[in-house]
């Protein structure tokens, strides 16, 4: 009766060949990879040094003002400012800036790549049917599976961290750009066409502006997912708040973990609220 429960055969996938392929790809394309590494490093450095250049109290004031403008409540502004201040107060300010620069770079790249892809697949059902399973894969594939290849290709540190974060965080912006454009009222699109808009005119002048709120919601989600990758990214050497969490967890230092974990949460909440508020403002204008 064993055959009922046993699988009839086992395919021997030559995983070693895949290993070799990735590694020889890394060796053979060193020039391109190095170019990408340098470019990303340059981007990260300039984001980080910009952030680093701003005195801490200016950022706190900016957060206060944004919070106030958004809700028209002084209280909100104060709460936001105190939250940000508390990260600095527990000595995690430099680490927060490192984390923030990785998040900003990842979100910027996600937007730069994801938005055009979203637009493309909204126009083409076939492209959409090809891209969607890839997006599903990117979202569900355990991060470690591509974390190590990322290291093989891009070394250890913030560059592969940005890569891995982008792979994970780009999905919502693609999906929601696609969804938003497809959900634009059909009559409005027809109207644009009926006046003789070219496809590009209809897209740029009508569909994208009409889908703006949804696209912004996608950007907000992308931001949140990038934040969620912070700790994972530190496992390939990205320094910042995530590394602090990783060290404390590995040492079973619960208290230290809680402090740095809370800093991650505060940063995430601030980014979420401030970006959401901006979307709402835009929506009200429309």
């Amino acid at each position, binding site marked *: 009766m064993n055959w009922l429960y046993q699988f009839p055969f086992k395919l021997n996938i030559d995983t070693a060949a895949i290993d070799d392929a990735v590694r020889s790809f890394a060796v053979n394309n060193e020039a391109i990879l190095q170019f990408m590494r340098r470019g990303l*490093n340059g981007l990260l450095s300039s984001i980080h040094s910009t952030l680093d250049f701003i005195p801490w109290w200016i950022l706190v004031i900016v957060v206060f003002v944004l919070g106030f403008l958004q809700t028209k409540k002084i209280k909100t502004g104060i709460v936001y400012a105190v939250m940000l201040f508390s990260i600095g107060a527990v000595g995690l300010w430099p680490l927060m800036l490192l984390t923030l620069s990785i998040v900003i770079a990842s979100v910027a790249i996600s937007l730069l790549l994801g938005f055009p892809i979203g637009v493309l697949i909204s126009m083409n059902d076939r492209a959409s049917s090809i891209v969607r399973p890839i997006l599903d894969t990117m979202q569900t594939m355990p991060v470690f599976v591509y974390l190590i290849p990322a290291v*093989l290709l891009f070394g*250890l540190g913030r560059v592969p961290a940005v890569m891995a974060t982008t792979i994970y965080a780009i999905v919502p912006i693609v999906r929601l750009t696609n969804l938003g454009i497809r959900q634009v009222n059909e009559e409005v699109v027809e109207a644009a066409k009926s006046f003789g808009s070219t496809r590009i005119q209809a897209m740029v002048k009508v569909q994208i502006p009409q889908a703006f709120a949804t696209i912004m919601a996608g950007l907000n989600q992308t931001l949140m997912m990038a934040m969620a990758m912070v700790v994972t990214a530190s*496992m390939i050497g990205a320094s910042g708040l995530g590394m602090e969490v990783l*060290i404390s*967890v*590995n040492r079973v230092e619960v208290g230290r973990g809680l402090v740095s974990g809370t800093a991650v949460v505060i940063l995430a909440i601030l980014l979420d609220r401030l970006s959401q508020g901006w979307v709402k403002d835009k929506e009200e204008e429309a």
Partner: protein
Amino acid sequence: MNMKKLITMMAISLLALAGCAPSTGSGSGHIVMADAGWDSIRLHNHVVGFIAENAFDLTWSEMSGSTPITYEAFKNGEIDVYTEFWTENVAPYRGDVESGVILELGVNFNDNYQGIYVPRYVIEGDAARGIEPMAPNLRTVKDLLDYPDLFVDEEVPSKGRIYGGIPGWAVDEILYKKFMAYGFDDTFIYFRPGSDAALSAAIISAYDRGEPIAAYYWEPTWLMAQYDLVLLEDEPFDADRFHEGLTEFGAADVTVAARKGFDTEFPEFTEFLSNYSTSSAMTSAALLHMQVSGDDYLNSAKWFLREYDEYLDQWLSAEQAAAVRQALN
């Protein structure tokens, strides 16, 4: 309609949960071993497990997790046996052994190495790969100070990079102290690789490209068995100054440990574990075999037992050893 569907689905989920009620009670004949996440501990688990099954008629399983998490489970008695305990890497270990929270049964091996490695081609070059020697005079850790430009950190191109310990491992702190004490701080970045897998990948990646890299690593590992890296020399070991990062790593004790009370429940098996002693070289060889042949852990464990057949007589009674040998054939 939708409500109905929802209720049906909830009912199914409940049933499924009920069906999955844990089948506890593995009985007295079951041993849980720690799988703290690296290859050699899994190999030793399978060797010990194979012997447990065939010589002691016990069943066994592994519980996986990071070092700190498995250690907590170990202290709580959820894990019975640690076959390869890197005592230097868990700060509270010594204290816990002394206070009797856990039992140290014996030393698995203590001929291991760890420290800062560089690929051999960095010093000697590799004619076959067309690599010129990059730092022919590099011998010691302190010599690295002369080469910040060679081991350049792409993130901070004005400085060199030394890959340090895995965050949270005890060696991380010691290495960082060494980094500061030797004055690397001005010209180098102390880079924490985040995880051992990431560190391995970084070394492999550099090695494949023939690039220079200076990184903490340890033996026995398949990586060290497969790749030709040189351990940089350091000041002679001194137990006190070592913790300040001022000397080389002594060979760390890698022990076999068991939870409190294990010895009274499984006296015979405990005796075997106390005898269980291998070496770094043996372990490396088995790991290299596994890496090259693609065998799984169980088959590699069998290979190990066949290869080092004579050890069975040291670990086990004649009768037990015979049972294992029979199972191997």
